[in-house]
């Protein structure tokens, strides 16, 4: 929770007061105090076990809310069965009392701030009271005690629905007030999403209540919690592993961006632009997500291209160009084994194809090019034009769109260009957020070293030397722009030649001084990329305002490390 707005404060206090009012009549309720104490202790123990093992709560959300960054719905907190069992057995006031001590007193590894604890206590208190009240007014407790079965399911079901409804209502309020989610979005899906998981937990709670009052007593009821605990534990593992996986993919693409000398975040921005196009085209969520991955990973094959070529400061020879043009195939070869990428793999292979057949690697024409590849091509060109590269300054969105428009039909699919234009128009511009996702998911996974906590490098943070020359924009054709100066550098196969000396590479190496960028295409301004006063040298590129960057360390910088141990 960021700084808490006054209204959110008022809201939290109001909810807490509500919970206290719910629990207050407990003195007159003739509650079975032993059971209340036992349930309360159980609830607190569940909570303690959860935060103790997994560090920190999952945010302020109640049961059934999604975890951070969580598409797919996180698990309900696993004390929900205890809470619901208490609601099924105890009078409403006593049920409202049960969650309070646990929510207020238990603190996780990272200290949960007071407002959040008060909020959780209040929310759960009101929820439990409502469920219990509904259950009592339907005559549920008698049905539970006499195990009058089909009817018990009805009363418990209605109580669970009421519980979900109240939690969703309160949750939406806090989302709108504290997290500043727009009001019309705040309540969307909260109730429906929580219904199934809380419903299953409600069944466990019902079983617990029945066994608690049965001849075997509370011991049998406790056993119900074991499977719930196991599944909660596995879900936590699942979220951890998923976050680690996302961090891996992100680190992978950042390595590519830096290796290529792009501004950081190019790949992720391409992912976002692809996603915007996909949404605009009305694709379903699964394909949208896949397209995001396609955009993110489109250049992953550049990991396989020698850094010296990618960042060569000067024009490329036809051979070098051909080596670089292998990157879609390298990328496809790399991700071939990643099953979940599905269609995205074709986008990685074909994102440099052009509609008129002059692209690579296969020179496909028009509809032969997979749809995903056509989307990624547009997104890639768009981001290349709107971000600053060493050889060209960022162009305004308007200009970039006009350029795409101009090349639509020959190079780009007009449908995709149109979709991008519409999507940008609707959103009022292009404001990519690159690392927000990363910051969130790392919270789940403490062992991850900092990967991308910095905000994305802003587009004019300085030129990076050595354009690779292959801008996917509407720029030079595949064969324009090469200049002699052949570099027999490490091509894809040359490294395997036996007896090759690890000595200084035979090529011109990291280049003799500054060479004007290899700009030759149409639409490129003369002397565009150079910010005044900076001469792109051949050495490692210091990012002027980042200092020692943990990310750039292992990424090959030209001339930094050589296999023979020499440092140029």
């Amino acid at each position, binding site marked *: 929770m960021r700084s808490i707005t006054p209204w959110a404060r008022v809201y939290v206090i109001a909810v807490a007061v509500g919970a206290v009012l719910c629990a207050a009549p407990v003195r007159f309720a003739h509650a079975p105090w032993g059971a209340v104490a036992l349930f309360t202790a159980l609830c607190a123990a569940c909570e303690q076990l959860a935060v103790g093992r997994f560090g920190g709560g999952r945010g302020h959300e109640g049961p059934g809310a999604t975890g951070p960054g969580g598409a797919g719905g996180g698990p309900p907190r696993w004390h929900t069965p205890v809470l619901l069992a208490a609601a099924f057995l105890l009078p409403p006031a006593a049920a409202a009392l049960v969650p309070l001590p646990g929510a207020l007193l238990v603190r996780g590894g990272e200290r949960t701030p007071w407002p959040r604890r008060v909020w959780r206590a209040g929310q759960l208190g009101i929820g439990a009271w409502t469920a219990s009240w509904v259950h009592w007014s339907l005559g549920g407790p008698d049905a539970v005690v006499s195990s009058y079965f089909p009817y018990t399911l009805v009363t418990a079901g209605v109580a669970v629905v009421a519980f979900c409804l109240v939690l969703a209502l309160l949750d939406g309020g806090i989302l709108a007030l504290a997290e500043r989610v727009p009001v019309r979005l705040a309540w969307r899906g909260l109730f429906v999403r929580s219904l199934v998981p809380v419903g299953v937990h409600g069944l466990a709670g019902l079983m617990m209540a029945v066994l608690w009052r049965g001849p075997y007593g509370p011991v049998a009821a406790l*056993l119900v919690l074991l499977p719930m605990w*196991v599944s909660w534990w596995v879900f936590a593992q699942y979220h951890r592993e998923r976050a680690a996986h996302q961090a891996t993919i*992100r680190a992978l693409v950042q390595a590519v961006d830096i290796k290529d000398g792009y501004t950081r975040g190019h790949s992720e921005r391409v992912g976002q632009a692809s996603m915007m196009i996909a949404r605009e085209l009305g694709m379903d969520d699964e394909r949208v997500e896949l397209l995001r991955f396609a955009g993110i990973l489109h250049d992953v094959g550049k990991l396989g291209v020698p850094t010296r070529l990618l960042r060569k400061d000067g024009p490329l020879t036809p051979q070098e160009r051909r080596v670089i043009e292998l990157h879609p195939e390298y990328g496809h070869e790399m991700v071939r084994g990643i099953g979940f990428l599905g269609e995205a793999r074709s986008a990685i292979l074909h994102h440099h194809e052009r509609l008129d057949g002059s692209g690579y690697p296969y020179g496909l024409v028009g509809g032969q090019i997979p749809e995903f590849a056509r989307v990624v091509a547009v997104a890639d060109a768009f981001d290349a034009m709107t971000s600053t590269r060493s050889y060209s300054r960022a162009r305004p969105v308007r200009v970039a769109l006009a350029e795409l428009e101009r090349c639509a039909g020959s190079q780009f699919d007009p449908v995709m260009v149109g979709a991008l234009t519409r999507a940008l128009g609707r959103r009022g511009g292009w404001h990519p957020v690159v690392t927000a996702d990363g910051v969130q998911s790392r919270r789940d996974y403490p062992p991850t070293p900092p*990967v991308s906590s910095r905000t994305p490098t802003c587009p004019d943070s300085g030129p990076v030397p050595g354009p690779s020359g292959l801008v996917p924009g509407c720029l030079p054709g595949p064969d324009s722009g090469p200049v002699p100066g052949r570099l027999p550098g490490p091509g894809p196969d040359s490294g*395997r030649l036996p007896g090759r000396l690890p000595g200084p590479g035979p090529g011109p190496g990291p280049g003799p001084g500054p060479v004007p960028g290899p700009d030759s295409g149409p639409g490129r301004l003369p002397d565009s990329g150079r910010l005044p006063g900076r001469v792109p040298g051949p050495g490692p590129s210091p990012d002027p305002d980042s200092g020692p960057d943990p990310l750039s360390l292992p990424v090959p910088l030209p001339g930094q490390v050589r*296999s*023979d141990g020499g440092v140029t």
Partner: protein
Amino acid sequence: MRALVHAAAALLTLLSLAHTFWSGLDGRAVALSFGLLVTLGELTRWSGPESREAAPLAAAGALSYALLGEDAGRATHHGAFQVVAVVVAATLVGCVPHVARGQGPTADHLARRVLTAGFAAICFQPLYNQGVFEAWGGPAYVLLLVALLVLTALCDAVLAAALAHARTGWPFGPLLRDELRAMLGIGTAVCATGVVMALAVAVVGLWALPVFSLPLLLTQLAFRRYAAVRATYRQTIASLARATEIAGYTPAGHARRVAVLSRAVGRELGLSEAELTVLEYAALMHDIGQLSLVDPVPAGATAVLPVEEQRRIALLGGAVVRQTGVAAAVAVVVERQADPYREQPVSARIVRTVNAYEEKVRDAGAGGPLRALEELRLGTGRDYQPEVVESLGRVLARNGGVVRERIG
């Protein structure tokens, strides 16, 4: 060993079926309901790559039927033989669609199911039917059931480890340890559900079965998603490892071969499942430091480079791995793969040895494996741990054919 287990399971099955046919079903509705539950559990069977218990609902159903004493307050009278017969019949019915698709449970799974259900039933039903437990109060009875299931779970773990040992030839001790550890996860859920269902049926009757099946299905779903994300993660790491091969830094398939062989050696040396995962990831990414080189090492052969150079590449690799969000333990192994073995963690020793072996075999041509092993033995003074080299030798000798096929 396997033949013995299978024979015992088959004998028990035949005996039970014969007995049940001869004496008829006792408590038809109950038997039918539990049979249906087991069948449903089998239908939702899911054989993922690393699932210990593919059909938890069926297992829980079988155990709860074995421990069932009452149905809504009325005592039941089915004996142990009937339990086994119902479980076998229901399991076989539930298997039909899976077998049709060619991915049914193996004979080992069936044998385990029959023997564990039989064990629990034979421990419980005769004593119960003689009224031994009538004097036991509520909580004590619950604890008795729990203790019985813990015992059953232990036997099941031993059985599973023994079967795996007979099937693969891996050492028994670590296999048993892994089985027991896995038992803490899904095994706990299955056993607890078994007890709860038996008790709940005793209190409320057969309604308890559907009500409490759903939470266990939730657990199964959680395990499934976890396994799926792990598989994806593994694929991603393997792809990352292929980057060096595609870049021409290392020969094609090198990382995967080192990973497979490292895993086999690690298993031979008795590493646990978690350590094996770390070892596998580290072996896949052990060459990743070479991506930071401007010029590739000839043929990617790092084992012949000067020591200083090897260590520097290793450190670079560790730095890459640290950023990828893979567990820090993996980065440590990658980082220290070039240290003298006395300073290394055991996983790094394995990676170092296997990597050197792989590179040497590649160069040596025919008769390579023997010569490569010999060269490694010469290096055991400083670089390679003798035990690891010997273990590698055993792995190659024992299932040389198999490993070579799988990695080749």
